[in-house]
């Protein structure tokens, strides 16, 4: 050890970490708050913002509050949100218990299936229910052939609530199973040796112990109830059952003119309901984490033998999967390949590829498929890069800016995709410099990126949290500045996590539909938004074919994710 080396000095010329950090936070803040403030501003105008006759006033609110349809929609939204919570929370928790704590055979194969409804577009699933179990759906027709009756309907408020509840079971499942994982199995074994059946153990011991997580999941599902759009559009709209989001969507047609001020007022009403729920969730999550660390005696984990209850648990699981996955997906698949069905029709004779031919003959559909793939792959990678940049801006920095970003990323959660898309449409119209981007896929991408900010940041920060602080401190002590540490130590270490995040973002971008509804234009077509538009136009064959293509795209992502061992949940 001869010559003494001096401590490295900061390089001049390269923008410092702090400049870069400030810039990241600034860009994030404008991307999140800009569109939202535009909605807010628009809601207090008496006409669209581009209308020269507009004045400031509360006329828009007066109009919608006087509209009986608004109150009808609000009531339905509350009923569905409450109903689906009541269905999803017990079912999701019970499934989590069975999957996490018992020796049910084949668990490894069931888990991705349970999560399927959270990866398939609700628009696609709803469409699947219509073609499978609607008045002339496959299963309805078969049931009538076999038993003479088909004792269900899918177009009532009750049916919508049940379907919404079942398709939101995964949301409860992920939180309940994460909490159950951190629970020591000794408490269950104690109950078991005291004479409790597995079902009894779940009801009296395990599930009460994860109450905080279940409460969190309940608030989450209730909140998602206000975001529902595809399901009420496909199932409720034909019967005139409106919810807040479909009411907003239908407003455009109501007056014949662009009624942006009314839409903005409804949007603000929705955010006024969802934002407090998001804050409540955040509070509950902190509480749940605290609880988990107190109760968590992870380490020794023994599966509870189900014994004769195995069949009941399997039956519950298979029934759930049949109704929420098999029925809609098989419905769509059949519908995409057959011309007609019903009594006496052999499905093999009715086989056709016409729907797909129709899809590939139309430029817009082809473009929709290409755009959807691009936005998931290239766009998804860029999105993960953006989220990572934001993650680094707050990583291991506990100051006012980090707390600001913490809340900032929560904001888009409270804004349903439909509203966010609308807000971005207005941003592109409102700011002339951005207008040329309006008809490019970039407009979709930025909206998607902002809408999924909270979800993405959770993925990134869970990767970042896994990097031991000592690895970064070690780099500091040998002389590395924050920028160098981020690039040379932290980033390489979280690379596997980022690849996993990219796959998950790919899947949600393939699935996304509501954000694109208002941004849909020649050049920006994506399958999700295209489906909404085609469904409105009644092009059922094309909808079926595109839906199937959409499922296949998500399926490819899911297959790669499973192959790489990406955790589908945190």
């Amino acid at each position, binding site marked *: *050890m001869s010559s003494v*080396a001096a401590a*490295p*000095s900061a390089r001049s010329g390269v923008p410092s970490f702090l400049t870069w950090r400030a810039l990241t936070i600034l860009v994030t803040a404008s991307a999140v708050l800009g569109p939202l403030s535009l909605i807010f501003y628009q809601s207090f105008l008496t006409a669209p913002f581009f209308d020269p006759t507009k004045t400031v006033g509360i006329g828009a609110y007066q109009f919608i509050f006087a509209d009986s349809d608004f109150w009808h929609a609000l009531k339905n939204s509350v009923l569905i949100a409450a109903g689906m919570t009541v269905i999803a929370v017990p079912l999701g928790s019970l499934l989590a218990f069975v999957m996490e704590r018992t020796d049910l055979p084949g668990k490894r194969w069931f888990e991705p299936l349970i999560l399927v409804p959270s990866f398939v577009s609700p628009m696609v699933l709803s469409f699947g229910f219509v073609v499978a179990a609607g008045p002339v759906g496959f299963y309805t027709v078969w049931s009538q052939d076999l038993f003479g009756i088909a004792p269900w309907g899918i177009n009532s408020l009750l049916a919508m609530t049940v379907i919404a509840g079942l398709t939101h079971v995964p949301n409860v499942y992920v939180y309940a199973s994460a909490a159950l994982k951190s629970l020591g199995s000794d408490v269950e074994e104690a109950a078991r040796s005291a004479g409790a059946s597995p079902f009894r153990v779940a009801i009296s011991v395990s599930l009460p112990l994860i109450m905080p997580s279940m409460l969190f999941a309940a608030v989450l599902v209730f909140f998602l109830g206000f975001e529902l759009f595809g399901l009420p559009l496909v199932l409720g709209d034909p019967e005139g059952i409106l919810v807040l989001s479909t009411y907003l969507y239908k407003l455009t047609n109501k007056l014949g003119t662009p009624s942006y001020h009314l839409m903005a007022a409804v949007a603000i009403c929705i955010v006024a309901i969802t934002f407090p729920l998001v804050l409540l969730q955040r509070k509950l999550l902190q509480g749940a984490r605290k609880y988990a660390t107190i109760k968590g005696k992870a380490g020794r984990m023994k599966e509870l033998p189900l014994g004769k209850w195995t069949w009941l648990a399997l039956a519950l699981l298979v029934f759930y999967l049949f109704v929420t996955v098999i029925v809609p997906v098989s419905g769509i698949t059949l519908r995409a390949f057959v011309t007609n069905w019903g009594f006496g029709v052999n499905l093999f004779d009715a086989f056709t590829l016409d729907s797909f031919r129709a899809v590939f003959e139309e430029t817009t559909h082809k473009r929709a498929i290409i755009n959807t793939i691009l936005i998931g792959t290239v766009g998804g990678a860029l999105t993960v890069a953006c989220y990572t940049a934001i993650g680094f801006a707050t990583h291991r920095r506990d100051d006012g800016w980090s707390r600001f970003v913490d809340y900032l990323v929560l904001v888009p959660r409270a804004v349903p995709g439909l509203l966010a898309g609308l807000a971005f449409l207005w941003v592109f119209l409102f700011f002339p410099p951005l207008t040329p981007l309006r008809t490019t896929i970039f407009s979709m991408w930025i909206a998607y990126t902002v809408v999924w900010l909270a979800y993405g940041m959770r993925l990134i920060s869970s990767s970042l949290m896994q990097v031991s602080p000592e*690895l970064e*401190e070690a*780099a500091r*002590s040998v002389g590395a500045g924050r920028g160098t540490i981020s690039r040379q130590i932290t980033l390489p270490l979280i690379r596997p996590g980022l690849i996993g995040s990219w796959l998950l973002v790919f899947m949600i971008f393939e699935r996304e539909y509501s954000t694109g509804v208002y941004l849909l234009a020649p050049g920006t077509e994506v399958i999700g938004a295209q489906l909404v538009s085609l469904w409105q136009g009644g092009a059922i064959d094309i909808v079926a074919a595109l839906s199937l293509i959409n499922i296949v795209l998500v399926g490819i992502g899911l297959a790669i994710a499973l192959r790489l061992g990406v955790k589908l949940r945190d």
Partner: protein
Amino acid sequence: MAAELTVENLHLTYGDNPILKGVSMQLNQGEVVSLLGPSGSGKTTLLRAVAGLEVPHKGTIKIGDKVIFDGASGLDVPAEARNLGLVFQSYALWPHKTVADNVAFGLKLRKIPAAEIATRVKKALEELSLGHLMQRYPHQLSGGQQQRVAIARALVYNPPVILMDEPLSNLDAKLREEARAWLRELIVEMQLSALVVTHDQSESLAMSDRILLLNNGVIEQQGTPQEMYNVPQTLFTADFMGSNNRLVGKIAQLQDGKALLEGEGWKLWGRARPSAKSGAQGTGMIRLERVKVAQGPGENRVQPELTTSMFLGDKWEHIFHLGETLLRAHSATPLERGKHWVELPREDLWVF
């Protein structure tokens, strides 16, 4: 000898919880100083404050003549510019870099030419007998090898002071004793100035030139290992530095630095420590190895009852009952159960 590291009146608080309450210390050139103390005493926090990873709110820290932290003027040189070597308890080797890259990183940051980096990394690793492992990744190394890589990484850019946080605690017991000897030899040979955090008193005795015993955020006592072990100034130091017998009684007499401690059925003379007061409650402390089993009555001898003996391999340990008090002592040979004479030499019994 020039002071390489000077800490003056350092205060540090987490929230409302004071961790360091005015710590001052010096580390001289070529010296090994241990920060010793129970968990929560603030020893790791002090080390991290010196490294720049914790921010004190009062006091100063100097490296040589250069002030790197000054609470009064708000000066706080960031960790990366302090040019110190830091060895983590967990070693904190970067798992995505090879051994050579781990060691080279600090040199790259110092803009040293690639050829020189290669020779210095090779030399540093060879000095630590790691030359053949340069292209391995950390997970392919044993615990002892990882520890040496961590040390090489901290030494390669010749920092004036090397800081080590519990460098041996991640090794298993047998390896730890070998590594202790190896590390002490390395530090002496390379004339390093090292500040070492440890919670293990035998480790600190063996490795350091000076020990700083921390208790509750303040320095309880500091001195050479011999002073710390043989001349403890406080009960806490006496208790922490070795295995002890503790006798509680009343101080009946105090004269010429000697104290007479009286308990139920026994009277013993010992060396009075500063806190001893005549007529007050007193605590007698004597190292286990200083208690002698005697053949008959005599000065400073008591006659307790032997109840249990344990074979430790190289010696026996005996447990005696003196009324309510337990006395533990060693002997080379086994003893019969029953009453024995035991001597607690007056120069080895401290009275606090």
